[in-house]
């Protein structure tokens, strides 16, 4: 089992992606015999180009994707610079961590309830300030330029990138470089740009790439906050896949491929920018010019952090309010009647159980595979080389580019809608996060502990069970919480692999957000947000409790 672990791990991820991509590429060029596509042709592309609104959809996709990534990275960097004192960094992290734990869809739904013309912000200010007795006809959500969509993405990506920056800082000990620069008379902002950023960028490249790929191809947030006529390319492709006219499957595949191309071009652009920026930075550092104190930038960054935290907290609060609302009409600040009916709605029970079940199964499998791979590394003393880069594939390939193909594969194997299909499709996305979270602590484990145990006569299995796993409890649970949170947030994989027969809180919340009882929608979004929080809480409290008499475990 252990020698096979890396192969199993890669196969679990690459088979769906590879087969799925193949099953998307072929129809994109006219080949899908079951639907009468027997010869290679460019007709799917012609049909795609003739789709109304394609041009604007592509422009919207690129615009929102680049804007969300640029803004998120810029703000995250600014926050990291501004919060350079450790105490400040702790405050900012504590403020933004709940945002990170909340799934995209739940956050987007809450944000929508907050900033819509009839949303809570307008209610708080009306009519005493605004004079509105009915909501204004302003497109503050689903606006044609995708501003709300961009804000919704930033709300989630800024905390993610900030935590990635803080982790990279700790690893590269880049702050020492900043202190050196400060001693040479460089202000914090200039020192960051010239000394710190180049040091941490190698660790930041992947998170930024993942954010870019995600922002360009996101479906659930775009369905909730993005415009509908035309929508982003990813949503447009999803609609084509679901069209009653079966011939639309061909242009849908072409569209999925186009999106994959846009993402690839975006990633290429990022690498290009990296080079140009490196050159500019090198030139700037040679001038020896000092400055970059940036007090105003500090203040602005702190304001941004507070604004972000307020938006996030407001989004969650308004979800809670709506989930307990009876009747709540504009411009009342609070519901006129309260009701717990939404929480008792039987329709939430199935999705809740499905979310927990799929999440636990996928997480446990991912932990098992990742742990076995890392254990193999420890035992053989070798690290997989380039193949490890394949781990990042599920984070970079647009979901919609391979999930429909993967669904076809599942259907062919008569697996769609079953537990295996769902767990597998979640595993594809859970595995990279679980492996990446687990790898560093596992590799940091002193290999001499295992040697000492073997010298005492303990077999490898006994060493794994009695020494390695207990010592890895905290990282295992932390990685598990991350994996569970990822699973709880997945929308498209459930939609495709579930054959519509399985609803999770994610699909339920997104479905209800486009219509349906707002109170039940709020309740399911809030539940979706609470599950990862519970998982994180368990990951913190459980090891703290089991190790309460072991001071050495706190140093791990």
């Amino acid at each position: 089992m252990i020698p096979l672990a890396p192969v199993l791990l890669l196969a679990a991820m690459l088979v769906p992606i590879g087969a799925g991509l193949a099953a998307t590429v072929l129809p994109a060029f006219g080949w899908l015999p079951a639907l009468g596509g027997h010869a290679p042709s460019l007709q799917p592309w012609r049909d795609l180009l003739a789709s109304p609104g394609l041009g604007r959809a592509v422009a919207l996709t690129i615009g929102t994707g680049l804007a969300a990534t640029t803004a998120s990275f810029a703000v995250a960097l600014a926050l990291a610079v501004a919060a350079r004192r450790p105490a400040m960094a702790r405050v900012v992290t504590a403020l933004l961590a709940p945002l990170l734990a909340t799934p995209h869809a739940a956050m987007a739904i809450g944000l929508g309830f907050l900033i819509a013309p009839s949303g809570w912000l307008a209610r708080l200010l009306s009519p005493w300030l605004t004079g509105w007795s009915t909501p204004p006809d302003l497109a503050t959500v689903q606006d044609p330029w995708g501003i709300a969509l961009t804000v919704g993405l930033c709300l989630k990506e800024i905390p993610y990138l900030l935590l990635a920056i803080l982790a990279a800082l700790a690893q590269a000990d880049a702050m020492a470089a900043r202190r050196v620069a400060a001693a040479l008379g460089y202000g914090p902002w200039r020192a960051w740009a010239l000394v710190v950023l180049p040091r941490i960028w190698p660790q930041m490249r992947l998170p930024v790439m993942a954010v870019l790929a995600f922002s360009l191809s996101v479906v659930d947030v775009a369905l909730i906050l993005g415009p509908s006529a035309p929508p982003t390319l990813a949503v447009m492709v999803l609609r084509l896949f679901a069209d009653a006219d079966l011939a639309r499957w061909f242009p849908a595949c072409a569209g999925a491929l186009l999106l994959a191309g846009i993402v690839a071009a975006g990633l290429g652009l990022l690498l290009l920018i990296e080079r140009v920026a490196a050159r500019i930075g090198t030139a700037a550092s040679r001038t020896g010019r000092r400055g970059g104190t940036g007090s105003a930038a500090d203040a602005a960054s702190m304001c941004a952090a507070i604004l972000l935290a307020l938006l996030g907290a407001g989004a969650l609060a308004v979800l809670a309010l709506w989930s307990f609302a009876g009747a709540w009409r504009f411009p009342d600040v609070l519901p006129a009647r309260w009701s717990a009916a939404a929480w008792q709605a039987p329709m939430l029970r199935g999705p809740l159980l499905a979310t927990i079940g799929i999440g636990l199964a996928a997480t446990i499998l991912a932990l098992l595979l990742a742990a076995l791979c890392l254990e193999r590394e420890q035992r053989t003393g070798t690290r997989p080389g380039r193949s490890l880069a394949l781990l990042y594939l599920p984070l970079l390939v647009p979901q919609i580019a391979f999930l429909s193909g993967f669904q076809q594969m599942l259907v062919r194997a008569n697996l769609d809608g079953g537990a295996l299909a769902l767990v597998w499709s979640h595993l594809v996305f859970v595995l990279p996060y679980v492996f990446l979270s687990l790898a560093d602590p596992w590799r940091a484990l002193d290999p001499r502990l295992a040697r000492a145990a073997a010298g005492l006569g303990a077999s490898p299995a006994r060493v794994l069970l009695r020494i390695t796993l207990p010592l890895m409890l905290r990282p295992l649970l932390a990685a598990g919480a991350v994996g569970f949170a990822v699973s709880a947030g997945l929308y498209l994989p459930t939609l495709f692999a579930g054959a519509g027969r399985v609803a999770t809180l994610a699909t339920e919340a997104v479905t209800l957000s486009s219509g349906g009882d707002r109170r039940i929608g709020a309740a399911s979004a809030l539940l979706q947000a609470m599950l990862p929080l519970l998982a994180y809480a368990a990951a913190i409290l459980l090891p703290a409790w089991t190790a309460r008499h072991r001071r050495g475990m706190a140093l791990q």
Partner: protein
Amino acid sequence: MTLALEAVTLSVGPRTLLRNVSLAVPSGEVVTVMGPSGVGKSSLLAFASGALAGGMTATGRVLIDGRDVTREPPHRRGIGILFQDDLLFPHMSVAGNLLFGLHPSLRGRTARRAAISAALAEAELPGLEHRDPATLSGGQRARVALMRVLLSRPRALLLDEPFGRLDAALRDRFRGFVLAAARARNLPTLLVTHDPEDARAAAGPVIELAPPAARV
């Protein structure tokens, strides 16, 4: 009980680290291996214990009491090892660590507990069974680590610079304690160190490993 290494050659890729090293450790004796860092001292111990790092290749044999254990996995060789760090398992109590080491042929909860208490008494640490290892002093931890190895009833003992981390006063005392305990159990002991003081205290044969360049 004897420990013997026969014609051991260690290489990292194309580079040969050790060539054709042979040594024999009789029962109750301590053989000291000395040499500058990077010469392959620790790798020799790793080869003997069966935990050679990936990327290294080796030829040669390891014999315990004349029996070839070169192909045996580490945990079946019966070779105990003590490192520079105590490497007590931080998630177990002192007793937990010792019970983990204690040979399974001693059965019964009471008997095993008694063996632990006796070992702690021998190490002048009576009554520390329930302590968290992290709360012990460096010297105490080192002695617990030694007792953990001895309780596993090894047929040979490897010492990988086990005194390097202790301060001077503590070092002498612990060294004496370890060597006495090994001799009392008639263990063949292989000591790796770069401290000549260790070699003198061991009072056995000393093998000097020279850097590869010097050996050509």
